[in-house]
């Protein structure tokens, strides 16, 4: 249902409805901003990326394909824009560049209401942060942004099977690290 709504907005934007661009912006600003911050902690850089993204949509409106997964398209473009800048910056500073995936919980997120759970969830948070970037990205897109495997595969530029495997391995590693604390919890 939602996907159709996105597609409708996209189509009417391509067909010349300026207001649809604003609606697309409102629809995606939150998820795009959060996703952008996975690659850098520089909020201004993410904002610049989002601005470029929407300006490009407008600029290349005539050449945009109607048959496109809107969400994947926007996520992919933003990621590319941000990583391009990061890569340039790294090259200028003579650093090597690898696409990161930042998932450390913010201070507010660390405050968990349920005291009993807090230790366990904090540990999960820590283990999550230690996973390889690609696994983190797949897990985040699947369970936070709640995307379909097809959409994730497009964004990460991998096959559907690789995508499922990344999710599988990510969870498996978390589970193996966490099982010990589960046993402790059961004994307590």
């Amino acid at each position: 249902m939602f996907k159709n709504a996105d597609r409708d907005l996209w189509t009417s934007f391509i067909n010349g409805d300026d207001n649809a661009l604003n609606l697309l912006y409102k629809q995606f600003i939150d998820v795009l901003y959060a996703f952008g911050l996975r690659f850098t902690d520089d909020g201004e850089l993410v904002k610049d990326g989002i601005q470029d993204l929407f300006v490009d949509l407008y600029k290349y409106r005539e050449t945009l394909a109607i048959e496109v997964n809107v969400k994947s398209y926007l996520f992919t473009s933003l990621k590319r824009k941000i990583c391009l800048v990061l890569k340039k910056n790294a090259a200028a500073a003579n650093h090597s560049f690898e696409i990161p995936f930042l998932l450390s919980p913010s201070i507010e997120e660390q405050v968990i209401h349920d005291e009993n759970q807090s230790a366990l969830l904090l540990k999960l948070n820590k283990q999550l942060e230690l996973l390889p970037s690609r696994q983190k990205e797949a897990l985040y897109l699947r369970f936070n942004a709640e995307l379909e495997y097809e959409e994730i595969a497009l964004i990460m530029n991998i096959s559907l099977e690789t995508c499922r495997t990344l999710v599988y391995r990510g969870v498996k590693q978390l589970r193996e690290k966490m099982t010990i604390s589960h046993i402790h919890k059961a004994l307590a």
Partner: protein
Amino acid sequence: MDSKNNYNAEDFLSDRIPEGRERLMSDSERELAGEIRQTLKRVGNERMPLLEQAELWERIQEKTINKPTSYPWRRYMQIAAMLLMVLGIGIWQFQKNTPTHKLLDFAAQNVGKKSMNVSSKTSKTNTDVTAPSNESEEENIITTNDFNTFVVGNGKRSAIKLPDGTKVWLNSGSRLIYPVKFSGDIREVYLEGEAYFDVTHDKEHPFNVRSSNMNISVLGTEFYVSSSEGNDNNYAVLVQGSIVFSTGTWLNKKEHQLVPGQRINYNLKENTLAIAEVKTTEFRSWKEGYIDVNSESLDAIIQRVAKYYNMEISIQNLDLSDEKFSGRLDFQSSADDVLNILCAGTPYVYNGVERRLELRKR
């Protein structure tokens, strides 16, 4: 891990458990899967503050929708419909010779009447009028005889560049009358309402702002004027340069020269002048079209919006002190847009017809 059960959290979360076999997973695995899901849901949810969202959209809009002339005509019609234009269509003999007399006569004829025919001759003036920078491009200029009348509707603001290069930002519900072409020794305009002037320097041709009961003479400077008929307090704020403020006729003329940072108040009833020191940054940012807020509550911000657009907004008896905002609030769109953006994400909505805030209906 569990020997009796085949499936683990990773099977569950990567959708590898065939339909109908979900029961072959222990409770602890199920619980762990839920916790992993929860953990992922809780990290990386940064939200851009609403004001920044609005600001970013403004930036995008300036580079896209507002950049070319996409639909100027439609926009022009919308604005035109909101305006209460007062236009004398009678032919006034401009027998008095001086430009000042002509301007004042024209103003006297055209300002203050509640309503008359709106002339069908309404025309957009040509190239000598362009709004500076990215201010709204809505030009509501009526040209009659030798004068242009520039009108800004309620809840709107607009800017205009005069033939001599002087820039004027007009506040909601204001009107500026100026000659199609400045001629003679003095550049003279007539203002009803509130405006910020950035006057092009020209020593040879002093610039005068006139209103129903006062006059301001300048060389080249920036200042803000508020003058409304029926309003007891008229004032001017000098931001930079120098102006001479005068009022009354030759019999009881009062005059005062201002220095930057001063505000002069003219009380019509008591016929007195008062000088005060003010912060000019507020007037500057008014001109630029934004205010900066730092953890201010929604009700305080709404009062600033109301003041900015020179209108009243009722918040009824709602307690808005818990809704706090920080950042830069852009005012270039209309008051309605600003309030809608502010209210997004709060339990309130703005009712533009009644000009009041209401609780969002579920």
